[in-house]
């Protein structure tokens, strides 16, 4: 029986905005349909050195988000007025929470 670790987030979580993106193709071009919700999440700066070199852009900000709410690749997180796009996920769903590395989106 795997432990549910989601309670660890409660003391450090704050409300942020999550834009869940459903992508479809219309007229041969991808079309994003966002659904905006408010979720509780722990936000930390991400260590750029640990992000895949093929993905990282050192001129951008990266944050590490932990939440009980599911975050998918391509979803957007709005934190302190800045928008970040989830580019990498951590496999912690079995332990009760979700992890995402998000890249600043301009």
């Amino acid at each position, binding site marked *: 029986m795997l432990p549910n670790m989601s309670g660890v987030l409660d003391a450090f979580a704050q409300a942020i905005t999550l834009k869940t*993106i459903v*992508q*479809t*193709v219309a*007229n*041969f*071009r*991808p079309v*994003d349909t966002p659904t905006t919700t408010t979720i509780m999440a722990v936000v930390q700066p991400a260590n750029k050195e640990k992000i895949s070199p*093929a993905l990282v852009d050192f001129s951008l900000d990266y944050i590490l988000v932990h939440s009980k709410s599911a975050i998918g*690749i*391509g979803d957007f997180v709005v934190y302190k007025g800045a928008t970040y796009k989830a580019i990498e996920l951590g496999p912690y769903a079995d332990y009760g929470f979700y992890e995402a590395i998000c890249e600043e989106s301009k």
Partner: protein
Amino acid sequence: MSLDALAAYVRDLLVYDASLIVIGRENLNRVTSGRGYILIDELVSTPMGRRYAYNGTTEVEQFVLDVKGAFTIDFFGDSAAANAKKFRLLQSSEKSFELQRTNGICVGHTTTITDLKSLDGNQFNPRFQIVVNVVSSEAATVSTLRIDTAVVQIINNE
């Protein structure tokens, strides 16, 4: 636009799901294993000739550029190789010529199918690329008033 015309040509030639044919890669989430996307992109294009026409009734100038360009067609998914080979075979069909006429493009025959997954750093998800030369025409129109009566002034510098 050439990309739209080529996308429509590929869709109809292969009788393919239009929602899986995407132009370019801008803002497209990473293609996942098994999804049979076909991505169409344009490389360099070269003008071959220019044409001009003026319609005095509608008062519209038309500027036309004949362009030849290299386009890439990337096949993904479990049937990537089969679809790439099917495309290469069907290029010689009567349907192919009709679709080129309908879409206003001329698509050159391809000979090489390149396996790109190793260049992608991807060992498992198939990706095969075809490069085709496409000749098409681009046009732009400008509303220009017609001159009905020309006012001619002769300047004599004697």
